[in-house]
């Protein structure tokens, strides 16, 4: 079971709402020699993210109360900000689901969220048995 599946089941069981969030990442600072600028995600890309989240919600969150959010920037601060703003009581996330560099980056997001979150964090390895 993945993080979304787990969140869905927990939400169903507790009549809770799932806040489905995707964060559009900024390019790593080291990769650009330019001075930092405020990066606003391409509105079309953002719209595509929302469509994708809606499709995911239809498939995986059927019958579960949910809301969809798209944020941009660094993933961990965005997750923590939404948690504070929406008064979220539990964060459910995968530790890493990719390979190579992405695997490392995702792992570090989970780690930072775990370290800084004021609310409990349920992490799940995507390859978890069952």
């Amino acid at each position, binding site marked *: 079971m993945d993080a979304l599946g787990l969140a869905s089941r927990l939400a169903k069981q507790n009549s809770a709402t799932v806040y489905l969030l995707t964060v559009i990442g900024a390019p790593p600072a080291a990769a650009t020699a330019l001075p930092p600028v405020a990066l606003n995600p391409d509105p079309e890309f953002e719209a595509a993210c929302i469509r994708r989240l809606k499709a995911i919600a239809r498939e995986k969150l059927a019958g579960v109360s949910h809301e969809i959010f798209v944020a941009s920037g660094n993933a961990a601060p965005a997750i923590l900000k939404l948690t504070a703003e929406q008064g979220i009581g539990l964060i459910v996330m995968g530790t890493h689901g990719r390979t190579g560099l992405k695997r490392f980056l995702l*792992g570090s997001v989970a780690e930072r969220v*775990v370290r800084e979150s004021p609310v409990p964090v349920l992490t799940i*390895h995507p390859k978890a048995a069952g």
Partner: protein
Amino acid sequence: MSLPYRKILCPVDFDENSIAALETAAEIARHFDATVYVLHTILLIIAPTSMPVYVDLYKAQEDTARRNLLELAHKHLAGIKYEIMVNMGEPAASILKAERGIGADLLVMSTHGRRGVSRFFLGSVAELVLREARCPVLTVRHNAPQKDLVGAWMTASPVTAQLDEKLSTIHAKMLEGGFRNIPVVQDGRVVAMLTEGDIRSFVGHFEDTTAKRAITQALVTVGPQTPVREAARIMRERKIDGLPVVEDGRLVGIITTSDALAAITSEG
């Protein structure tokens, strides 16, 4: 991994952080009628290859750990099925081994607060467990007043003065308590801080002057969740010795420069 959770592993380190995790594990176990496996790992400091393992020494440690675990379980897991486990070695490896051994379907553990206090979960332990665990891992933060927040250092329920109170009685209160500042309240709300200096400028007129007239400083307050350093910064910038601590509009305490110094010098 399966829902409902049947086997919940909770590694503990006999500190307040671990208790927060244990209580969360207990709550979930109650919900699912699950068994809580309470695990303590004794750090094995002597490398078994280079020196003989002092079996007797570790045996004593193990007995103590078992006793402590039983005590913890008795206190926090009343009415819940539990098992206690004591391992020796490196904590992350011990947790992962136990997870696999019992076929845990949930691991509940604590993270340290902003200033790491739990040696158990510093650095690589939590990280390794998060990455390697087969079952979901629920990390819980200990929510008791943190050592670097005003709430942990303030004087709760301080002595107060009324806005229309005469300086003579206020002065007496301050002398009696040895206070250099006193919060002034009106209708249950703090409206100002009255300082020793404010009062001193009315020497000889204490009987016919009220707090209202003597107040010179604009009110600045902090909350129990304000970092002590931030409170110290405010006091330094505004050259004041004490700040009222307000929560939900209610005066809950006072923090002074001495409190801030005590907090900052206690940081390890």
